[in-house]
Each structure stands twice: as C-alpha cells, then as structure tokens.
C-alpha cells in the first residue's frame, strides 16, 4: 500500500517538475526578490524591511498560484484526459491515488519554497551585508507559508475531485482570499444577528485560517513568533489538510468515471 502511494507521489512530483509553467513562476518569484532590492534603495533605512516584506509576499503569492494551478489538475485533468483509467484498473485503491497525488504536490511545493527562499535570503544578504539573529524568524514565516501551501493544495485537490479545472481554481482562490480575512470574518460573525450570524459563524470557522499563518509584517519588524503559535498553527494546518483530503477521498470514491 505505501509503495503505491509513494509511486503515485513520485510520479506527481515528476509531472510537476517537467511542467514548464512551474519554472516561469519560480523565475517570477526570484525576479520579485531581485526587484525588492531596487525598491528598498529608495529609502536607506527600510531596505531590509522591503526585502523581507516583498520577498516573502512573493513567495507566498506565487506559491499559492502554483499550488492552485497544479493542484486543480490533479484529478480533473486525469479524468479529462482519461489517463486515470489504466491507473485505477490496477490494484490501486482510489484513496491511495488521492493521497499519493497530495504527497507529490506537497513535496513539489516544499522544494519550490526552498528555491524561492534562497532568492529572498540572497536579496537580504545583499542589502544587509550580513545576517542577524532576528533573521531566524524568517524561517518561521517561511514555514508558515509552507503550511498555507499544504492547506490550499488540499483544498484544490478537494475541488478537483468533483468540478472542472476552471471552477476548482476559482473556488480554491476564493478560499484563499476569504481565509486571509478569517479573523475578521469571525469578528463580524460575533457582531451579526439572526440568520446572518449563523451563516457567518459557520463560514468563519470552516474557512482556512490563513490570517494566523501570515506573520510576514511582524517578522519584517524583527518581532519573534511565539512557540505556542507555531505549535497550534502546525496542528491546525495538519488537521485542516486531513479534513480536506478526507472530503476528496469521500467524493472521489463515489465518482463514476464516464
């Protein structure tokens, strides 16, 4: 069983690596890191601030785009192109297929983030000439960004298991936007009344909590990140991802592949 998931994951990784779009997006992200150096030079004091803000934001946004872009094709493309038939007629369980696809894409994103992070650290070194102790918090910010990727990938996979590539992309991106304001949504839910309150509360707790995973501006100001937050965020990301994957498994298990 595990070897099959591993095979599917490895193949998904291979597919992503050979997809040219990926390289374009990574190149863009690196470009942004480079551009941040120029932008920072406008004001001497805030070079470091700009590099961190712009660099990490680029990593985050481009990573989300990659995650959604490749994620939506995970299942819907395979059904469209009928490559799935010869896979599922083999002794591969449907849930193994879903999990394998997820692991493969998650691995791709971690590797991506690694390369994009090198760009950010490179730019930082260039403007600051040396690293300082507080730079270690950047790693935490990047770790949180990877957690965001895991969540959005699992959502893209979930949507991909029942809708077309285009709609999956729209849904996944919407969830990203709403999730960024999840804390505000919960605040709004607390102030609302009646039906709106119930709906808002339901939505506010179901939507992925990206707001807590975004520590870019505080890290840019050299603020530390609490250990408790790291723990809770990790647990939350893993649990949420599992939730979405279970949903994908349940849907895909029932799907007639016409």
């Amino acid at each position, binding site marked *: 069983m595990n070897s099959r998931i591993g095979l599917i994951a490895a193949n998904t990784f291979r597919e992503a690596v050979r997809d040219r779009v990926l390289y374009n997006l990574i190149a863009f992200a690196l470009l942004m890191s480079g551009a941040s150096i120029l932008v920072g030079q406008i004001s001497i004091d805030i070079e470091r601030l700009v590099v961190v803000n712009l660099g990490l934001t680029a990593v985050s946004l481009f990573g989300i785009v990659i995650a959604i872009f490749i994620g939506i094709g995970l299942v819907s493309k395979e059904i469209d192109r009928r490559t799935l038939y010869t896979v599922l007629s083999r002794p591969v369980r449907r849930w193994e297929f879903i999990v394998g696809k997820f692991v493969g894409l998650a691995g791709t994103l971690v590797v991506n983030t690694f390369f994009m992070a090198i760009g950010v650290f490179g730019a930082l070194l260039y403007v600051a000439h040396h690293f300082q102790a507080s730079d270690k918090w950047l790693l935490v910010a990047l770790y949180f960004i990877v957690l965001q990727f895991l969540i959005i990938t699992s959502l893209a996979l979930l949507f991909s298991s029942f809708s077309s590539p285009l709609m999956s992309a729209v849904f996944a991106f919407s969830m990203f936007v709403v999730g960024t304001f999840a804390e505000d949504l919960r605040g709004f839910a607390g102030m609302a009344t009646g039906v709106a309150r119930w709906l808002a509360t339901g939505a506010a707790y179901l939507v992925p909590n990206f707001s807590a995973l975004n520590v870019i501006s505080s890290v840019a100001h050299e603020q530390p990140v609490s250990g408790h937050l790291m723990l809770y965020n990790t647990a939350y990301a893993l649990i*949420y991802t599992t939730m979405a994957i279970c949903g994908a498994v*349940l849907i895909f298990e029932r799907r007639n592949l016409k």
Partner: protein
Amino acid sequence: MKPSQKTTVIATTVLLLCMAASVLLLFRIDRLRSNATLEEVLYISSPKALKRMSLGYDGLLADIYWTRAVQYFGAKHHAGAKSYNLLAPLLQITTTLDPHLIVAYQYGGNFLAPEPPNGSGMPQAAVDLVKYGIKHNPEDWRLYYQLGFIYYMELHDYQHAAEAFARGAQVPGAHPFLRILAGQMADKSGNRQTARMMWATTFETTNDKSIKYNAAAHLRALQAEDEVTALETLVARYRETTGHPPASFAEMNAAEWLHGIPVDPLGHPYKLTPDGHVELAVPDDFPFVTRGLPPDFVPPEAPRVLPTD
C-alpha cells in the same frame, strides 16, 4: 462493485473529528493572536500607501479596519482596559481608506477623546481626525457638531467649540440644537443643561450602537445628578423648616413634601443618609455620575452591562 464501505466510514469519521479539532484550535489561536493582527496596524507607517496598495478595493478594506476598530475598543472596554493605543491608528487608517465613513469620525469623537477607561485619552488626535473628516465632507453638519463636542467636553475650549457649532449651524439641514449650543458656549461654567443637550443630540444623530449606548449612560448620569441635587436641596429646606433632618423619604412623603418614594433613572429608590446626603442605591450602574456617590465609593474595574434605553 460499490464504493468501499470501509473507506467511507473511516474517511467520514476522520473528517468529523478533524472538523471538531480545527474549531477548537481556532479558539486557541484566536486567543493567542487577539491583538496580533491589530498590532500590525502600528507597522503601517503610511495609510496612504495602504490605500494605493488596495488596488481600488479601499472601501472594503476600510470596512474591515472599521470592524477591527469597533471590535478592538469594545473588547478592551469590556475587559476594563486602561489604554487603547491602537484605536487612533485604526481610525486613521479607516478614514484614509474611506474618508466618507462618517461613523468613524463620530466614533473617534466619542471614544478617542475621553480619559481611560472610557476612551483613549487623546483629545487632540480626535480633533485632528474630525477636522480631516470635515475637510472631506464639508456639507455634513454632524462633523461640525462632533468637533464642537470634543472642544467642549474634553478640551473645555469654549471658543473653538462655539466656532464649530456656529459653522455647523450654517450647513443646510443642520440640527436646530447647533445654533442653541453655539449661543450657550458663552456660559463657560459648563452647566449640566448644555451637557444634556449635547448628549441628547449625540444620541439622536447616530446609528452606531456603542455611541448611542454611551450617550444614554451619560444622560442617565446627568439626570441622576440633577435629581440628587434637587433632592438634597429639598432635604436641606425640610431640615430648616422642621428643625430636624428627615429620617427617610417615607417621612417626607407622609408630610407631603414628596409624591411617592423618589427613584433613580433605573428605577431603584434613592437612599437618604443621616447627614442629609442623597445616594444612589447602585452607584456602579451609573458610570459617569459625579454626585450621589457614597464617600468610600471605588469605581468598578470593568464596566458592567447596563440596561439599554
């Protein structure tokens, strides 16, 4: 072949467990981060830049920051906080993003200016905020009123208050009280009558619940103060006339000096002390009152939930 039952059962169970767990984690995380999102406000050195970055969605972003401001102040006030250092930046960002959000200026006028725990204690910031509002909304009389309000209530700057009210009174559709208030600024002692008029105007001219609530509390306090003063005067005259202080209001009622037992605006009977002072039965219910308090009274740490008017 049917979908595998084992898979269905396991996946459904795990899904439900995860849902529950994620909600519990969110409670934890929210508590941990209760101010983190807001503190980022301090890092936004330039609200104008934020407006540019919002790519035209500044209205929505203004609403989000407004919601945050209200939540921030409401939550902290409820917990009896002593400082609200984020309120000013939050309101500044809100109004930069949407200069026409009048309620934000009203909020600032009511809660930026007063001393903690009822406000940020930053009256000058409040003045600046409302002046910014006037610049962008010169035809809205409510902002002139708000400006005059701050000058009068917190800064005791009667001249500027008079000017603000006068300018406001000239705006078409202004509340008739503005002209009266402009005139009354001449009475520099700051009497209760003027204050009552202003709080009544505030109460009537806003839709924001917290502002109305606050105004109502002020009005009740003023009414209680008036009643305490009137009762104490009556008690003093009774003593002069009869030669001894009244033992209770019941005695005064029997002697037809009063009709019924006097009650405060919340319906509790006033207390009469042996030395002729009148006290509120439950002083905690009147957060702004300055008369009718027992000598050893200590205001409560956190504001209590009061009945709304």
